[in-house]
């Protein structure tokens, strides 16, 4: 019976149910106690911890389909790969909510705090489905769920011209990208007669040469992914939205939504095209579409455009936006190898990049709280006026560049290992040159912090909670740079996908 299979699936989607209930709880709490908005973030954090607990409980669970009935295969899967990304998303969301508490920008919209936390919970729910979907329908719906929440969050500060402009630009680019992706999905459906990844795989496996219609459809679908992970040439929204959106949301988009996009892209490519694996761990993909070429071109374009455009930026948030485009390029470069080694590099890179980027955005937010500016010229001499923040920012920027002894080095090291293992020397040289270019604009911030004279003599003090949060983000960046064994072990475990 269908109803039985649905009931049997319930224990598999415990975390998703918890997040959905949390969403309702936040809405109801906001309506019932309009005077107690200061408890909303703590309610959300409690819900996220509960969802995290349920996710951890799934770890030992036998992986399988959810909502499987009779001859139709399920809509989402539970496996270690999804498990890793779910924990990453929950961790990032937790930090973002703590950031939001200390954001002055959001204090102006204090009366709408309920909406803010509801929408963040909506994004978590969407991203949970994104990382575990194996069906084109859930793929489309989950991407849209994440997108709609982030459109509204990007334009959350209604009184600010920058914020509402960011919202409008985001929704126009997002809607066009998802419209193009939807057309691609409709062509794939017409070609294969099914929406399930595994069933599409059965049909695609048998093609011996590239097929024009199918290639076109997959390129159209890739537009949707490219927009989510902000790959060139679908990156035009990124700098504008990252600059205009509230800093907390910028940090969230740059890590969590990008991670979900990558997880979806990896699962899509691996499940649909997988025909076998050779003795060195490289996937043998179906010849229906040559992913390797497309991904190499996109990754080289992405990192080069990201790094070179960042050179001219004077707004720190905009610079970090271009830097996040460049980082997406490095991760795509690891993915182009289409191997387990490349996947390991992406997983490790995401942990490292997540910590570092969140830390950098948090310090940008704290400086904005005090000075009201994100322009790089206003950072002059701040390294002496706020010593701890200056040192932390320096460590985080060194980590973003990928220099030892920080965690960023480990991430980049594994990207290089996966590329040189192939071996693909041209791509390795391009990645190396790009890292050198990136050094310039990261060091430029450090130069403004320490070598330029401050315009006004000021003293800044930060509350203990904010200092602790900065330390929580900065110290692991150094520890992971020196002692990364556990990170690798965790990465290796989380590569296992359902069906392989």
């Amino acid at each position, binding site marked *: 019976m269908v109803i039985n299979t649905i009931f049997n699936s319930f224990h598999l989607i415990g975390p998703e149910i918890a997040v959905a209930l949390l969403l309702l709880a936040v809405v109801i709490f906001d309506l019932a106690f309009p005077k107690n908005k200061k408890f909303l973030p703590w309610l959300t954090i409690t819900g996220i911890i509960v969802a995290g607990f349920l996710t951890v409980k799934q770890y030992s669970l036998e992986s399988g389909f959810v909502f499987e009935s009779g001859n139709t295969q399920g809509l989402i899967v539970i496996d270690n790969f999804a498990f890793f990304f779910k924990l990453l998303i929950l961790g990032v969301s937790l930090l973002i909510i703590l950031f939001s508490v200390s954001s002055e920008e959001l204090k102006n919209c204090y009366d709408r705090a309920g909406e803010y936390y509801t929408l963040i919970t909506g994004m978590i729910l969407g991203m949970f489905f994104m990382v575990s979907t194996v069906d*084109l*329908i859930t793929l*489309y*719906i989950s991407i*849209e769920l994440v997108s*709609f929440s982030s*459109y*509204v969050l990007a*334009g959350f500060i*209604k*009184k*600010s*011209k*920058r914020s*509402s*402009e*960011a*919202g*409008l*630009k985001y*929704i*126009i680019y997002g*809607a*066009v990208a998802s*419209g*193009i992706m*939807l*057309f691609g*999905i*409709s*062509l794939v*459906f*017409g070609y294969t*007669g*099914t*929406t399930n990844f595994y069933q599409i795989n059965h049909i695609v496996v048998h093609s011996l040469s590239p097929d024009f219609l199918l290639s076109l459809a997959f390129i159209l679908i890739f537009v949707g992914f490219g927009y989510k992970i902000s790959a060139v040439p679908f990156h035009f929204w990124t*700098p*504008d939205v990252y*600059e*205009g959106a509230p800093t907390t949301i910028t940090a969230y988009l740059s890590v969590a939504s990008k991670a979900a996009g990558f997880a979806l892209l990896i699962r899509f490519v691996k499940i649909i095209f997988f025909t076998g694996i050779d003795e060195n761990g490289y996937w043998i993909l179906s010849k229906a579409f040559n992913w390797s070429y497309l991904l190499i071109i996109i990754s080289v374009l992405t990192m080069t455009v990201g790094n070179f455009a960042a050179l*001219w930026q004077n707004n720190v948030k905009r610079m970090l936006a271009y830097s996040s485009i460049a980082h997406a390029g490095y991760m795509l470069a690891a993915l182009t190898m289409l191997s387990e080694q490349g996947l390991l590099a992406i997983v490790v890179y995401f942990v490292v990049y997540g910590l570092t980027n969140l830390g950098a955005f948090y310090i940008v937010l704290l400086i904005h709280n005090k000075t009201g500016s994100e322009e790089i010229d206003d950072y002059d001499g701040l390294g002496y006026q706020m010593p701890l923040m200056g040192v932390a920012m320096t460590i985080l920027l060194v980590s973003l560049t990928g220099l030892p002894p920080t965690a960023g080095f480990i991430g980049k090291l594994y990207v290089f290992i996966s590329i040189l293992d192939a071996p693909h020397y041209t791509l390795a040289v391009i990645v190396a040159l790009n890292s050198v270019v990136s050094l310039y604009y990261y060091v430029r911030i450090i130069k403004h912090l320490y070598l330029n004279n401050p315009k006004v003599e000021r003293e800044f003090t930060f509350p203990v909670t904010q200092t602790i949060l900065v330390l929580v983000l900065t110290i692991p960046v150094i520890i992971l740079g020196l002692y990364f064994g556990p990170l690798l072990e965790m990465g290796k475990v989380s590569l296992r996908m359902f069906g392989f």
Partner: protein
Amino acid sequence: MIPVEYYLVLSAFMFTTGVIGVLIRRNAIVLFMSIELMLNSANLTFVTFASFLGDSAGQVFIFFVMTVAAAEAAVGLAIMIALFRNKQTLNADEVNVLKW
């Protein structure tokens, strides 16, 4: 019976019209109309294949797409009102606080 190609050509034409509209029109509301055209062309493809292949999955998909399109219009109009209150314009060329 009308051959399936006719429907597909029509939907491809609608999709192209939508993309061109997004590229050349500058009013935000007209941009949204063009995006709706793109979504509807995908819907037409879905229903064509669903009827041609005798598989109802395509028709199920359409309901989801229609819901998403409605939500998109709601969110889009809300953001446009917020922007219009700040800038008194919906022309995409004049929305240029954020650039390079």
